[in-house]
């Protein structure tokens, strides 16, 4: 009996893993394709079918919920070591596939299920360790639930998107707060952070109610969080180390600068300036993706069992990402012709990073098989 149960469990685990990998890859590729079309980049497969149309319409849903939501869900499920915790990433991953297939309503409600499961997982984390950073992880999960709920009920993008970004920003802030425990706490640092998180959530609520000052409050809280992270994060110390540690710190510090840019652009966009693309993508690509580039070399071995050989080559996609963001986010608002090439170079940076990860995984296997 036990043997049969074990083999059934193994088979289920293989299916679940394959589904997760497929869902993440599809969400990322379709999300990027949709983003490129939105930015006016012509794609050779433009006439390929309806999925591409869905990818354009659901760009944020695919990138934030189906891609990052699934990746973050897996990361948390691995940390709590609880098989049921994988319900969250499996649901969010599947919601992306449904969205591309045109089942928009089913996809939206499945993403609500994903967020509910993710709230449950983070409640478990808080029960296990009562601390400020675990409480923030739970707040992030609740923000995702609010965003997905509003989206499923047909709320406009202006109401939904602040909650979705709130989910990402609070998740990252929580993880960095845990690291700042190694620094001596300045008096007032903790109350300042809670005040900024409160302002961010108030900005989300105000955006959902379409209040006029909502964007200014949301942008100001992003700017404040950037200042807080630049002041108190250990990255300011670890940038003086070498190798992987310095690379990670570089990704973090560049990300905080883009978070500040996003805050200013978000507030400016709410006052009628043409900075909406800068606000959204300084946050999504400059801040969140930079964080992902930094942490992939330590997170991939932990969640996927894939070890990477770190080397200077990791700085190439990082440099391309940030250089192309300068073109797209800082120059394109005044010279619109730069938007499409800037966005295309953003996508090339992500593809280059994927190739770097693949190459460094092969290099690790090759070097370790040749010495074993």
């Amino acid at each position, binding site marked *: 009996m036990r043997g049969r149960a074990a083999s059934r469990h193994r088979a289920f685990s293989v299916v679940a893993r394959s589904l997760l990998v497929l869902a993440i890859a599809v969400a990322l590729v379709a999300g990027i394709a949709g983003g490129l079309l939105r930015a006016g980049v012509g794609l050779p497969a433009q006439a390929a079918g309806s999925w591409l149309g869905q990818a354009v319409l659901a760009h944020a849903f695919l990138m934030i919920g189906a891609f990052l939501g699934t990746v973050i869900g897996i*990361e*948390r499920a*691995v*940390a*709590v070591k609880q098989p049921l915790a994988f319900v969250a990433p499996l649901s969010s991953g599947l919601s992306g596939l449904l969205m591309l297939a045109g089942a928009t309503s089913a996809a939206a409600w499945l993403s609500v299920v994903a967020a509910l499961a993710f709230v449950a997982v983070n409640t478990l*984390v808080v029960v*296990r*360790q009562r*601390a400020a*950073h*675990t409480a923030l*992880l739970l707040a992030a999960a609740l923000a995702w639930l609010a965003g997905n709920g509003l989206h499923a009920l047909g709320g406009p993008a202006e109401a939904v998107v602040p909650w979705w970004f709130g989910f990402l920003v609070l998740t990252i802030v929580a*993880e960095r707060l*845990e*690291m700042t*425990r*190694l*620094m*001596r706490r300045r008096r007032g640092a903790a109350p300042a952070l809670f005040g900024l998180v409160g302002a961010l959530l108030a900005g989300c609520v105000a955006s959902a109610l379409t209040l006029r000052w909502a964007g200014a409050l949301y942008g100001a809280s992003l700017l404040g969080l950037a200042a807080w992270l630049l002041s108190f994060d*250990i990255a300011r*110390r*670890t940038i*003086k*180390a*070498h*190798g*992987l*540690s*310095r690379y*990670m*710190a570089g990704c973090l510090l560049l990300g905080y600068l883009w978070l500040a840019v996003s805050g200013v652009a978000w507030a400016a966009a709410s006052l009628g300036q043409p900075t909406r693309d800068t606000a959204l993508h300084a946050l999504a690509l400059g801040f969140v993706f930079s964080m992902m580039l930094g942490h992939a*070399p*330590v*997170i991939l*071995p*932990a*969640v996927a069992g894939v*070890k990477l*050989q*770190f*080397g*200077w*080559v990791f700085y190439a996609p990082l440099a391309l990402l940030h250089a192309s963001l300068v073109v797209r986010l800082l120059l394109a608002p005044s010279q619109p012709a730069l938007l499409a090439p800037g966005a295309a170079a953003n996508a090339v940076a992500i593809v280059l990073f994927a190739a770097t990860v693949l*190459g*460094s995984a092969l*290099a*690790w296997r*090759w*070097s*370790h098989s*040749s*010495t*074993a």
Partner: protein
Amino acid sequence: MTTDTGLMPVKPPWLDPLGIDASVVHPCRGMDNEHPCASEGPPPYPYAGPEAMRKPIDDALRRVVDPEVAMTIVDVGLVYGVTAHEGRVHVQVTMTSAACPVTDLILEEVQTELAHATPADTQIDVELVWEPPWSTDRMSARAKAFMGW
């Protein structure tokens, strides 16, 4: 637990043109002696076992680095105690967060480094403990200096 031979891995030059490789080179290489990894002196955790084993075990534990904080687990104060007795090494390690996805990797690296540092038939037990909870009081003086205390 299988371990590799401890030889320097052969690196493809296209991946590593300047010879930096976090898996074999300490991330703190080249730091001035203010850095915690330059730390010498008695281990900041209780040790029970033969005196001859003390340094190899401590050196092995100091090779396990959390790249996020650029410090060894000994300097962060994650090692709670070591017992070495009749072919068995038992290490108690903690983590700073229950939501940390890299816990298993760090435990695996402790196991691998200790396997390199001890005789071939040594049984190595790495135990993850949560009590007492980690606090900054456990950081070494140089770790605190590195973090700007």
